[in-house]
């Protein structure tokens, strides 16, 4: 019978444990800065993964397109009616933009104030997804060289999906909002409001086990109702304004009885989704 662990090895193991726990504690709430070896490893691995992920995505999309071929006519009709809505909205948008410009002029807005809401949407492709469900992140093929910075919001055409947590020169990591959790100081709560009811307010602080976003701190007199569309309010500075988050599915009195809590069904299918195309939203610096 051989000995499982000698005394020396046991002490070594304990020393390693202490060392690693210290390392984890030190890097727990880091600000997303990376040292050059980290950047090098991340860029190299991400580049190699993009050579696999993107073709795999194409094959998978092709297969699912074949499977849904019979839905083509219905989809076409739906898209046409949507296109008509767009044409109508575009006309309205032009008119409103003109009006806003006129009002900004009249109120003597500075250039900085005018620029504030002109977001730049950077298109990016996903190159890999974290295999560990405790770490819901994906890597995208835009990095520092493309103007991507830590804490920029990331969305798909459906809605908000997360924020940038670390940036290498040519690739960056997106933490999905399924990682939101109020125990975790590193995850940033989202200040939210309701589309069409700007007086509404709440903080989206975590994702529940069943995949709903929990919106807390809603004043009891708030006009928020089931079925409303929740968007980011822009308060707090991390998340830009007006990005769709989801629909309200329920509202109840919160744990302490003072404020209300609502459950939001995310618009972008976050969990169970195979992400492909995303947009990084850059808010112009003042």
């Amino acid at each position: 019978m051989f000995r499982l662990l000698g005394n020396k090895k046991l002490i070594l193991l304990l020393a390693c444990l202490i060392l690693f726990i210290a390392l984890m504690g030190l890097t727990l709430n880091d600000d997303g800065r990376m040292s050059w070896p980290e950047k090098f490893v991340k860029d190299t691995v991400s580049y190699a993964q993009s050579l696999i992920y993107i073709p795999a995505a194409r094959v998978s999309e092709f297969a699912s397109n074949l499977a849904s071929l019979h839905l083509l006519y219905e989809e076409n009709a739906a898209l046409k009616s949507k296109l008509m809505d767009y044409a109508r909205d575009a006309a309205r948008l032009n008119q409103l933009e003109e009006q806003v410009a006129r009002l900004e002029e009249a109120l003597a807005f500075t250039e900085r104030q005018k620029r504030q809401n002109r977001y730049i949407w950077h298109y990016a492709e996903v190159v890999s997804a974290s295999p560990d469900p405790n770490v819901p992140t994906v890597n995208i093929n835009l990095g520092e060289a493309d103007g991507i910075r830590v804490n920029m919001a990331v969305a798909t055409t459906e809605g908000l999906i997360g924020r940038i947590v670390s940036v290498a020169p040519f690739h960056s990591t997106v933490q999905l909002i399924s990682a939101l959790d109020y125990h975790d100081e590193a995850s940033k709560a989202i200040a939210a409001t309701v589309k069409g009811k700007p007086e509404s307010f709440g903080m989206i602080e975590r994702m529940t086990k069943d995949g709903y976003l929990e919106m807390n701190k809603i004043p009891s007199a708030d006009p928020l109702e089931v079925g409303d569309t929740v968007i980011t309010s822009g308060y707090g500075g991390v998340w830009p304004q007006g990005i769709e988050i989801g629909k309200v599915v329920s509202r109840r009195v919160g744990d302490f009885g003072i404020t209300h809590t609502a459950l939001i069904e995310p618009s972008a299918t976050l969990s169970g989704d195979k992400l492909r195309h995303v947009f990084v939203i850059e808010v112009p610096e003042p």
Partner: protein
Amino acid sequence: MGMKNRWLVLLLLLFFLLDGALFPWLLPQPGPDGFAVSPRLAMMGILYAAMFRGRNLGLALGLVFGFMQDVVYDGPMLGVHAFSMAAASYAAGTAGMRVKSGFLLPLLIVAFGLACQEGIAFSLYRLFQVADMSWSDFAVRRLAPTLLANLAAAAALHVPASRKLAAEADKRDEEPA
């Protein structure tokens, strides 16, 4: 590093790339109910290396690939995978020291190694309050599906992998117990 280990490392690198780039398209992604299968092909390769080529090699590979996983997918803190993968492959290497043949026993040791790794990683996340899942939920929704899927892959790859590794293992890889 010998010629034989170079091939092993290259293969593990490929496995590591596939884990994050190909398997998201093949496996069901984490659903809203929390059921998730994580592809751990690289970890399985390391466990096999630890069993057939010695636990020290397993420890080193676990450290390197664990750190790579920590950096590439940018977890909430650095070192979770490095520690859990190194410790689990060392443990599996210790358990598998005398096992060089057969089918069921090596697979059992791989299962033990995988469970160790997932368990250590999850307990570290719980310790730092990054995960708020309960242990029973973790066991049913994360560990069980992950073990099942990865063991199926291990069973499929077992015969070629063990034959190759056992044939190439020379005497100098045997460490004194």
